[in-house]
């Protein structure tokens, strides 16, 4: 929710990201509204992470990226964050030498006044306490972030996004390397967050996707090839072709793994007949 109490949105129009001559993202249009839990999927090199990088000014963007009326293209990273866009990375990047509370406190400090910066932290604010509880780290608040488990670090990162008042949460593979219990807890947390934030999740885990995604955008080779509910996307012939029909460009095993990931029968992938077979 932004300050006018209108629902938040992120609208990407005709986004292009070009590195030297390689076009990583080629004319992507994507709109995600508050209340949606959007998953962004696609084979390796599809441009998913690059799209997120473009939103946060880590990659050179052309086109338009609008968040609640603010144009983000051409802004610096810290300015974009100040408009309410927060993200996590594939590898958790918390401040390992600082405690959990210190991590959250730094994230919450964005709109702090100068006078408060020279003061020391006194106690834990109710807001941080609340977030600590939400991310399940209340018992570890004085623990150095570096000794947390992988899952806990990811939760801490999500917690940092919450306290920094982000209205858009861009999460890059948040459940990679998590146990089943941790995945479920993360999924429930994301579902709760989606009610009040624009949430976009880049994910490879199709089981996780089927359980929690409200809508899915499929990217391949820098373009969007399908968008809709999980069922709609799985039924899309184009998606099937991308995941099943890639036998010519990669090994049969890889194609089968990819196919299984989207919930298709891996045995449908064969060396010679895959693309045609998938279309039928």
């Amino acid at each position, binding site marked *: *929710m*932004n*300050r006018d109490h209108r629902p938040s949105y992120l609208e990407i129009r005709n986004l292009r990201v070009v590195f030297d001559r390689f076009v990583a993202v080629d004319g992507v249009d994507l709109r995600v509204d508050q209340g949606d839990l959007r998953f962004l999927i696609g084979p390796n090199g599809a441009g998913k992470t690059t799209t997120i990088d473009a939103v*946060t000014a880590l990659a050179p963007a052309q086109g338009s990226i609008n968040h609640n009326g603010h144009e983000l293209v051409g802004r610096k*990273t*810290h300015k974009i*964050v100040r408009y*309410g866009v927060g993200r996590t990375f594939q590898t958790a*990047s918390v*401040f390992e*030498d*600082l405690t959990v509370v*210190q991590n959250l*406190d*730094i*994230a919450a*400090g*964005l*709109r*702090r006044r100068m006078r*408060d*910066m*020279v*003061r*020391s*932290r006194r106690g834990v604010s109710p*807001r941080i306490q*609340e*977030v600590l*509880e*939400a*991310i*399940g780290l*209340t*018992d*570890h608040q*004085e*623990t*150095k972030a570096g*000794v*947390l*488990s992988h*899952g806990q670090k990811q939760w801490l990162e999500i917690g*940092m996004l*919450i306290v*920094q*008042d*982000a*209205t858009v949460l861009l999460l890059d593979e948040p459940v990679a390397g998590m*146990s089943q*219990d*941790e995945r479920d*807890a*993360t999924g*429930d*947390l994301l579902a*709760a*967050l989606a*009610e*009040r934030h624009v949430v976009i999740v880049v994910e490879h885990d199709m089981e996780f996707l089927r359980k929690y995604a409200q809508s899915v955008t499929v990217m391949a080779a820098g373009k969007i090839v399908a968008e809709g509910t999980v069922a709609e996307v799985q039924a899309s012939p184009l998606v099937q072709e991308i995941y099943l029909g890639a036998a010519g460009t990669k090994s049969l095993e890889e194609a089968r793994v990819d196919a299984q990931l989207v919930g298709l029968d891996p045995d449908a992938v064969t060396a010679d007949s895959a693309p045609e077979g998938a279309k039928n």
Partner: protein
Amino acid sequence: MSAAAPSTPSTSTTPTPAGTRTLPAVTEGAGVWTTGPRGALLGLGVGAILLLVVAPMTLSGFGLDLLGRYLCMAMVAVGIGLVWGRGGMLAMGQGVYFGLGAYIMAMHMTLADTTLEGESIPTFMRQNGVDRLPELWGIVQHPVVAVAAVVLVPTGVAGLLGWAIFSRRVKGAYFAILSQALAAAFAVLIIGQPVLTNGSNGLSNFHSLFGWDLSDSTNRTILFLVVAAVLLTMLAVTWQLYRSRFGELLVAVRDQEERVRFLGYDPALVKTVAYMIAALFAAIGGALFVPVVGIISPADIGVVPSIAFLIGVAIGGRATWLGPVLGSIAVSFAGTQLASVFPSFWVYFQGLLFILVIGFLPGGLASVTGFLRRRKTSETIEMEVTR
């Protein structure tokens, strides 16, 4: 406060992933990061008693001057501890700010002495064939202006340079080299302007400070007490800074600059502020160095002295609160002792010491106790895990 508070997920709708996996809670001794208020008061109290009471009572005038000199150098070290230890910026050119402070003060004192002697321009200028006081000198004639310039000029220069450097994301070894080049350039600049600065001879032979006779032993004791009080104040300021949110942010920038950007802060701004504070400390150290030591010359501010400032900081423990100041005083003391016995050997010994500390004890001597404590803690964790 922002109005976006409703974005917090209410705890009733949010499941808690707690309990899925637990770790032994390792809470390292707080002393590694910050000293508590009691410890800080104790540290400052002991320092105050030693410097403000014991030293003036026991040391001769010469000894007090020597200690005063060490304390002035230690002020630079406190600033380096801030930028290098906490901020990760290896500032190898603090001599620039030390020099700026020192030369502003020296110019003012030279002018004041000249006026007392009934002359219109300093002797060295007349010897260089100058008959009118340069405008640059005229500015610092008034003591208030001189003191203001000691504070504002180095801080302003550091602000401009720091912003230019850090907003271009120059860091690591590149920053170190750049800062060192600045020190070299500054020394060359001063040597190259003999009319303004008396070149490599520097400025010396001061008789008075703000109208006080510098040859009077009581005045010298008071000067020493001022120097000690300034250093203790700097330590109190850094102590508060280290435990403040700014201090935490600075450490965060040091460890993960990119991540800080994604929290909406501009790391360049954080680094520039720290750099300016260090410059201010160095400048004050320089300004007090001049009346205490009685001379400032390019030899005190170039590349070699700039690196020498670092050695004490590295040995004492750059990220700790008291490490830099204690290390700096110890190295200054050792330098005086050894240099009188083996004059040419000391420089090599200093270099060797620096390499050894950086190579084998990057946390400095202060990390030895922490290292032992950590080993103990990790042993207990292992026991808990294997149990």
